[in-house]
């Protein structure tokens, strides 16, 4: 065979078929991972379907010819083996909470208990078709009703919709509720007030809600400037959107006064619940005077963030807004003291309508209820206390090396500024963030909120241990030292030890390559 086959110069003729690169990846080193499409080789397959025994009709009889596809959609042709290798290698190029601390401010990247994965995988939950009638889905309905009750107790509100799929969807829902409520009173209003520290989804949602954004500045204490607020409050104000603690991690101490003044002009208060983790069981938005509250279950209630989603953004409201909630809503419809409760669907009288294809991100909701049940009233309060403790510890610890823009204790997160590192090397917050990657941590949120120069927004969450905080703080300190004492490129070229190094974002936007097929 040796002689007959190929001369010494013959290299085996592979691959003469296009594609199909299925390299291994070093555990370290920086091999690129080819795309799925580059792993493809014509004729390969991984799929396997049931043997059904269904008699087949000619395809012409199934789909009229003008609708029938003439050539298959080119997907990729890979073996299961290469599919697994590809995505497993991709996973090795991805940081995650399960790998280490992820102090990404405003995002509450806490540990996601694994038992909640088991809950979400239960065939009796995951295998239920959403259009099945209530008689066949009593378990789900009860679960949703129970979750709603718990969320209302936590927020101090009267009822909630579980439909919004994320915080931003919750915001829009809340604004539509606000609009419906005003309109029902025959009171068309046009403006919604937002502090300048607000998250970008707030103004974007206001626009979608058909309102005009009115921005109020923060005062030197990082809170809503009360005078400025008074200046913009009038009868055309439909409401105000606040998060408290706000995005600086500071508690709006004047919240009662704000509530009173907004209510005085007939406006409603919307609570952006992204920061609810700070106050669980200690303060309730309802008790602060809020009328509408969204929660980010993926933040506060630890449903995993999934690389960017899914989340869930239920919206709870005070009594007077209940008739406007989206529908249909899961409710208890029967059963008595002796009989087991019976659940069904009901659409509130003046419902704004549906906000989701079905009933919301149901399996995310189930995870959140599991988390809630695990923690209970005692555990939830500890969550808030320790989250705030961790943030204050980091704040105190970093106060010697970074600028702390507001000289007040923080809540669950702290915004520090890297402006003091600018000299002599021009180091910026982004450089600090990138350098932190080299040291094994995810970066904090950078340049948000917009009102703090060179902002680094650090949210340790309660699931990071004091030892991890110590390591994180030491890393920040080391970077501050490097910023001033080492050659500039230590930071400005960072990261040095990641799967790819600093990525050219400008080029991506300039020469847009949004798909593999768009490659030059």
């Amino acid at each position: 065979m040796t002689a007959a086959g190929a001369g010494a110069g013959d290299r085996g003729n592979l691959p003469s078929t296009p594609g199909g690169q299925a390299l291994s990846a070093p555990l370290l080193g920086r091999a690129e991972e080819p795309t799925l499409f580059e792993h493809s080789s014509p004729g390969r397959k991984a799929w396997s379907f049931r043997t059904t025994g269904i008699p087949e009709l000619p395809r012409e009889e199934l789909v009229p010819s003008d609708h029938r596809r003439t050539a298959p959609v080119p997907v990729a042709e890979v073996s299961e083996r290469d599919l697994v290798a590809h995505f497993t290698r991709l996973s090795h190029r991805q940081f995650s909470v399960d790998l280490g601390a992820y102090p990404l401010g405003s995002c509450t990247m806490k540990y996601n208990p694994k038992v909640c994965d088991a809950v979400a995988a239960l065939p009796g939950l995951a295998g239920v078709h959403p259009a099945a009638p209530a008689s066949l889905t009593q378990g789900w309905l009860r679960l949703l009703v129970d979750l709603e009750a718990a969320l209302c107790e936590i927020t101090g509100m009267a009822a909630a919709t579980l439909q919004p799929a994320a915080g931003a969807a919750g915001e829009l829902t809340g604004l539509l509720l606000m609009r419906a409520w005003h309109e029902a009173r025959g009171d068309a209003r046009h403006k919604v007030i937002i502090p300048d520290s607000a998250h970008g989804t707030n103004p974007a949602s206001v626009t979608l809600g058909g309102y005009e954004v009115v921005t109020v500045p923060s005062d030197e204490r990082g809170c809503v400037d009360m005078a400025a607020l008074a200046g913009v409050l009038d009868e055309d104000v439909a409401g105000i959107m606040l998060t408290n603690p706000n995005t600086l991690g500071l508690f709006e101490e004047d919240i009662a006064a704000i509530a009173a003044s907004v209510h005085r002009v007939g406006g409603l208060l919307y609570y952006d619940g992204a920061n609810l983790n700070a106050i669980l069981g200690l303060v309730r938005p309802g008790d602060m005077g809020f009328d509408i509250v969204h929660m980010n279950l993926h933040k506060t209630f630890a449903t995993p963030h999934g690389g960017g989603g899914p989340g869930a953004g239920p919206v709870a409201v005070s009594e007077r807004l209940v008739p406007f909630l989206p529908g249909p809503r899961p409710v208890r419809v029967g059963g008595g003291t002796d009989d087991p409760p019976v659940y069904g669907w009901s659409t509130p009288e003046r419902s704004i309508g549906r906000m989701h294809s079905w009933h919301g991100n149901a399996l995310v909701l189930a995870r959140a209820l599991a988390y809630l049940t695990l923690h209970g009233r005692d555990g939830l309060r500890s969550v808030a206390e320790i989250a705030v403790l961790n943030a204050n510890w980091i704040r105190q610890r970093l106060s010697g090396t970074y600028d702390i823009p507001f000289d007040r204790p923080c809540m669950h997160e702290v915004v520090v500024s890297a402006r003091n590192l600018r000299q002599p090397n021009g180091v910026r917050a982004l450089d600090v963030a990138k350098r932190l990657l080299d040291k094994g941590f995810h970066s904090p949120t950078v340049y948000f909120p917009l009102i703090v120069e060179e902002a680094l927004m650090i949210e340790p969450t309660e699931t990071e241990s004091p030892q991890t905080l110590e390591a994180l703080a030491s890393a920040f300190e080391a970077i501050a030292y490097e910023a001033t004492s080492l050659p500039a490129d230590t930071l400005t070229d960072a990261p040095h030890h990641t799967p790819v190094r600093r990525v050219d974002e400008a080029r991506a936007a300039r020469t847009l390559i949004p798909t593999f097929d768009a490659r030059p």
Partner: protein
Amino acid sequence: MGTYIPHTETEIAEMLAFLGLSSLDELFAAVPAALRLQRDLELAEGAEEPDVLALFDEYASANRARGDRLLCFAGGGSYDHEIPAVTRALAGRSEFVTSYTPYQPEVAQGVLQAIFEFQTLVARLSGLPVANASLYDGASATVEAVNLAAAATASQDIWVSEGIHPHWRQVLATCAAGTGHRLRTVTLTDGVTVWPDPLDGGGRPGALVVGYPNYLGCLEDLGAARAVCDQTGALLIVAADPVCAGILRSPGEWGADVVVGEGQPFGTSLGFGGPYLGLFSCTSALVRRLPGRLVGETVDVDGRRAYVSTLRAREQDIRREKATSNVCTNQTLMAVTAAIQLGWLGTSGLAELGWRCAQATRYLRDALLRLPGVTPYVDAPVVREFSVRTPVPAEVVIDRMADEGFLAGVGLGTAFADADDALLVAVTERRTRLEIDAYVAAFAKVAA
């Protein structure tokens, strides 16, 4: 107290001391006392993990309509497709599950590349060049498409086919209260949309929205819709089923400007309706109006291929009230799942999947229509699913079929007038002939 907080009492005490505090309570000094909750939350005490699992087992047991007990013949936007072990294993990798939006591309190439591959696949399925990184679900994708079209055409008159999923139309209506879009519903004529000629009333139309196939499984004439758009300057928004994409001409080929859809069929479980996956693709002309995240290819400082979220200037965190959308958290994990599942299906599997569903659907439809009293609800050619009228109310059929071990379908009574006796039935590649024959036998019994 939950077991996920690592801090010991000693550590807490030390940390407080460092802060010059003597109790955790003092951390909340900034909170006015009057606002503080003066009692415990009225929730149970924290529970042990196995007890919580047992509780959720109870919730789960109370659901009769679960795939492991009732054979699923329901569709209507949610489908019982094969999810192989390999998809579950890969999509369940904790690096994908427990990371967040790839703000730091240097440590997020895993998710970014997976999304880049997802975008490529969605673009190929739709026949359009650009796709985003996901939206919440089919409904929200449709809303975003309408918002995009209204902005692009500077027109708020949106014509929506009644063949769009009824829930999606409801969500459109809900959101229109904020945006001020005027939605006009075009009713179905024997299962398909016949656009009024001319589109009467209202101003210049901003968009036509039509399903492919539509909610009843019928094949719409996209050519006709495109023609209306060409005449009027409206954009053509097609809500397309991605599984049928394996066997149908792509909406892009038909001339769609925006294609939306529900991506649940690619590896995501029925899950009582969520989390699902909103698919969104559009023409290059519209890319700067794209809602949501978009991943693009670029290089790192060493020239190595890399991926990054791009055209960020459209997004809410930068553009704020002028953003193309308010979307922030999306459905990335489902998008990664879909990329994996499509990789598993591959070119041949996607086509095979489409045809198998079509064959099975036809087999059951023909068999049901042979039963006495069962008649077609509409006559247009169908793929994906079909609707029949039955001698007894659909609600009753579904109830009785459950006792026979089947989730019979979705009643059409709430979505269409005069359709209480109409049932929408879907058959996926997972149903065998034996199962379908048993369904027919049971149907004959309960719908007699």
